[in-house]
């Protein structure tokens, strides 16, 4: 019981930390993208009525959405790797799919 509790607490805080990074961080980046796109589009997209369109806003939005897409790709990699009995390793900084450590 105590062993299990210890393993669970160790795992739970990691899940919480990574969950916050990806599960709240990526939506934040997405929201920044939407914000940036609205600023870039101007007009009726903004609450302020006389907002002007800004090309830089569109570029910022594209950058934000690219980060989100990378996050989705990572999620897909984990799903596929797990299905094949492998894991995604971050040993080389960038993620690679490797055999499950025994």
């Amino acid at each position, binding site marked *: 019981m105590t062993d299990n509790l210890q393993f*669970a607490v160790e795992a739970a805080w990691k899940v919480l930390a990574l969950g916050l990074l990806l599960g*709240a961080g990526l*939506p934040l980046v*997405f929201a920044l993208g939407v914000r940036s796109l609205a600023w870039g589009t101007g007009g009726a997209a903004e609450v302020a009525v006389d907002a002007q369109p800004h090309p830089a806003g569109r570029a910022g939005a594209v950058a934000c959405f690219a980060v989100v897409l990378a996050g989705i790709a990572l999620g897909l990699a984990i799903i596929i790797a*797990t*299905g094949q009995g492998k894991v995604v390793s971050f040993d080389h900084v960038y993620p690679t799919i490797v055999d499950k450590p025994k």
Partner: protein
Amino acid sequence: MTEATLILVLVVGTALLFDFTNGFHDTGNAMATSIATGALRPKVAVGLSAVLNLVGAFLSVQVALTVTNAVIKVQDSSGAPNTALTDNDGYALLMIILAGLVGGVLWNLSTWLLGLPSSSSHALFGGLIGSTIAALGFSGVNWNGDGTKLDGVIGKVILPALASPVIAGVVAAVGTWLIFRVTASVAERFTETGFRWGQIGSASLVSLAHGTNDAQKTMGVITLALIASGHWSDTSDVPLWVKVVCAVAIAAGTWIGGWRIIRTLGKGLVEISSPQGMAAESSSAAVILVSSHLGFALSTTHVATGSILGSGVGKPGAQVRWRIAGRMVLAWVITLPAAGVVGALMWWLGDLFGGYAGPIAVMVVLVGLAGFMYARSKLAPVHSENVNDEWTGTPGRSAKQEVPA
């Protein structure tokens, strides 16, 4: 047909029925928010989820043969069944599995009738634990593992169930709060469209992950039954036909759509907007994937419900119906023991008659109760047309309210 063949056929059929209920029970985990916010039309949402579950089920080639080892001791670590149970073509083992599966199916149907999301894995494990206790006594259950890793009923079922809604709720609440801070100056019409796309993407990831995880459990159970009865011997692979029928069963269940549960999740807990839906599904996807990556597998249902609650807590001024959340928590707490009691009763019933009559008696009870619950559900039907109607109470209650004044 021998007794063992009869019970094997019934085990496979009941396992597929369980897989089907698993599908419709969990559609809402991925799609309830997209349906509630109108990001996807109801039929499109369940169709998308069904396809992704099907793809997910085929993506997982990893053998899930040792699935029962987490909670009961009927097979060894290679997946081979306990030889004490394999006499007479595995009749004893098959009876335990059959009774356990019936416990899982009946509990899934009861909670669906009440519109309560409850974990299908808990129902399956609960049923198996109950039938194992009835057949082998308390020592047949793997309560605590051997202390070297997270294992047993406590490590694989109870502790994750306590942790998952809290973790998912915190992540979703933080995500929702951040989103509303950042987009406060953007017109609502503009944010709704943008976040719908994010919501569809994250909900799709949840569906795919669900297919890879849940269909495997049924594949493992069916393969165990085939090995016990001497129809399969390879413990490193699952027969192709098992993979195909399990994938199709869970996808078909998803496609039918558990509208009662979708309604509770999408409309009952929180009045949800697109940014909240996106935050909730992103939290679910991230928490499910991170936890399975770290080997601390969490129930999709508990995570999804925690996320939706969190998205209500994180939005300034949003209303969360805590009474409904309370009912759900109650359902979660009793899922394991309730399915266990049914599993144990079914095993005793089967054992009382034995031979051909035992498994048939169990089937009669299953079909009778399932038919009864299906008939009850027709008194207050929930379907794709009324799933998004104004919330007036859980399905069980609105039936009473519909009496003309």
